[in-house]
């Protein structure tokens, strides 16, 4: 999986979109898998008491694709993400993960599905009685992985989010941004194929926010992870929809701007308004949109 360059990835996706005619058997197998979206919402409704939060939401996240969800505060973005994990159940409609209809799954059946999903909570939601190490190691400890492997993996993940020094700290000794990054490390342990980011950059300084976006780009382009990225910040959108990660001959990861050479097709925007999806598409279409609501969202007035 790691060997996938972004070119390969993108051409794969293009095949899905344009010509579903595999040339050889291996391709065919690969493509069938790719046709099935990683996440699919079909006409999902949800209300709390009498307030309708989701009013018929439909969208899909393909393999290796990142969907950026935009919308007003309180617009139901976190709720949407919670539905994917089965932490909430919709009133009606269907939610599919890897083609599996999980809408009516019991808590037990959901446990299997959750194994392939990593979630970064908006508020971090770290276990405050456990150290940073134990928080990040949580999933591995539950799976009974040997302590030696756990330690290697935890250190790798913490290096990823630049927090190796904080390994023995308790969550209440961390700043808000550090807590968020520990949450990211915890979500990414075990290499989940689907990652849900709930406003991972809110309240972080620009360089740290950039690091987190780079992380999401790397997951998308190098690890073929499907993800949902909820955010309010258009800067994040810019990074995610204009840059891609490639591995050079030395094995270093570089970020390149999309341009003449290739155009990113694996990042799309989903805009929510009053419980409905009012826009799905690329960033340039988004900025060019005539819609009043989108205009005010972009310009803030």
């Amino acid at each position: 999986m790691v060997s996938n360059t972004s070119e390969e990835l993108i051409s794969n996706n293009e095949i899905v979109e344009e010509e579903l005619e595999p040339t050889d058997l291996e391709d065919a197998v690969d493509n069938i898998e790719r046709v099935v979206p990683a996440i699919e919402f079909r006409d999902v409704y949800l209300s709390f008491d009498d307030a309708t939060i989701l009013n018929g939401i439909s969208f899909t996240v393909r393999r290796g694709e990142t969907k950026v969800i935009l919308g007003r505060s309180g617009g139901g973005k976190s709720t949407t993400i919670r539905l994917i994990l089965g932490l909430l159940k919709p009133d009606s409609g269907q939610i599919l993960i890897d083609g599996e209809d999980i809408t009516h799954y019991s808590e037990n059946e959901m446990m299997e599905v959750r194994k392939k999903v990593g979630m970064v909570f908006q508020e971090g939601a770290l276990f405050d009685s456990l150290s940073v190490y134990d928080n990040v190691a949580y999933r591995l400890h539950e799976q009974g992985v040997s302590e030696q492997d756990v330690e290697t993996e935890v250190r790798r993940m913490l290096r990823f989010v630049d927090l190796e020094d904080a390994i023995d700290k308790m969550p209440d000794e961390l700043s808000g941004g550090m807590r968020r990054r520990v949450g990211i490390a915890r979500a990414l342990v075990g290499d989940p194929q689907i990652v849900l980011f709930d406003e991972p950059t809110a309240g972080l300084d620009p360089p740290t926010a950039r690091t987190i976006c780079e992380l999401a780009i790397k997951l998308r382009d190098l690890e073929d992870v499907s993800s949902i990225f909820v955010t309010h910040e258009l800067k994040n959108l810019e990074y995610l929809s204009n840059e891609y990660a490639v591995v050079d001959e030395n094995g270093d990861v570089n970020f390149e701007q999309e341009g003449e050479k290739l155009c990113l097709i694996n990042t799309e925007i989903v805009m929510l308004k009053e419980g409905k999806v009012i826009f799905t598409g690329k960033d340039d279409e988004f900025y060019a949109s005539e819609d009043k609501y989108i205009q005010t969202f972009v310009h803030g007035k």
Partner: protein
Amino acid sequence: MNLLQKFLLELQEITLLITAAFVGLFKSPRYVKETVKQMDLIGVGSLPIVILTGFFTGGVLILQTFPLLVYYGAQGESGKAVSTSLIRELGPVLSALMVSGRIGSAISAELGSMVVSQQIDAMRALGTDPYRKLVAPRLIALIFMLPFLTVAADVFGLIGGGIVASTLFNQDYGVFLASVRNGITVEDIISGVIKPLFFGLIIGSIACYKGLSTTGGTVGVGRSTTSAVVLSSIVVIIFDFFLSRALQSILDVRPV
């Protein structure tokens, strides 16, 4: 009607919680380490207050009944008087009340704040069943440790009674001890140990249920903690009556 509905609903939820916790015991991973930790916290941690409670309850029993026994000329039976009421009733119930105040509140506050800070959601998202990881160890620890605590309360109650009888009323230790031995029956001991098993289940399940169903932020945590203690104390006391009655007929206990 609404109140009855609410009561039945809660009863159903609590039953489901207990079932979920115990069904989980037969599947791996089993949270043995977690359970041992809770046993230490609940059992060893509550020992001092339970001992103190038992000691002074035994003491005050003698203090109040001894003059009465003297009046009836039955001061030789003082040990019997304190041991019967202590082992049958006061030991189990008072230990349960103390533990419900100390542990029931701690459990529901802990689980409640995990709910409001989304840690329970995070736990579920990471593939762990909170009923198995959090509820089952606490229930087992309570059910297992409360009988021991009760026995400790009983023993120290008798010691307290003995000390009061000998120091304040100049009774011989030997006489007191003999009448204790005389007064305790096997049925008393059995029923005195069976009761805390149920009380442990009551306290644990109510505290876990109240904690996990917390809503409304920090204020909600306070609310569920209070209602966990109040509800479990009341249920313990009410249930004690019916349990005593049932045990009486099952064990065929003679009325003193």
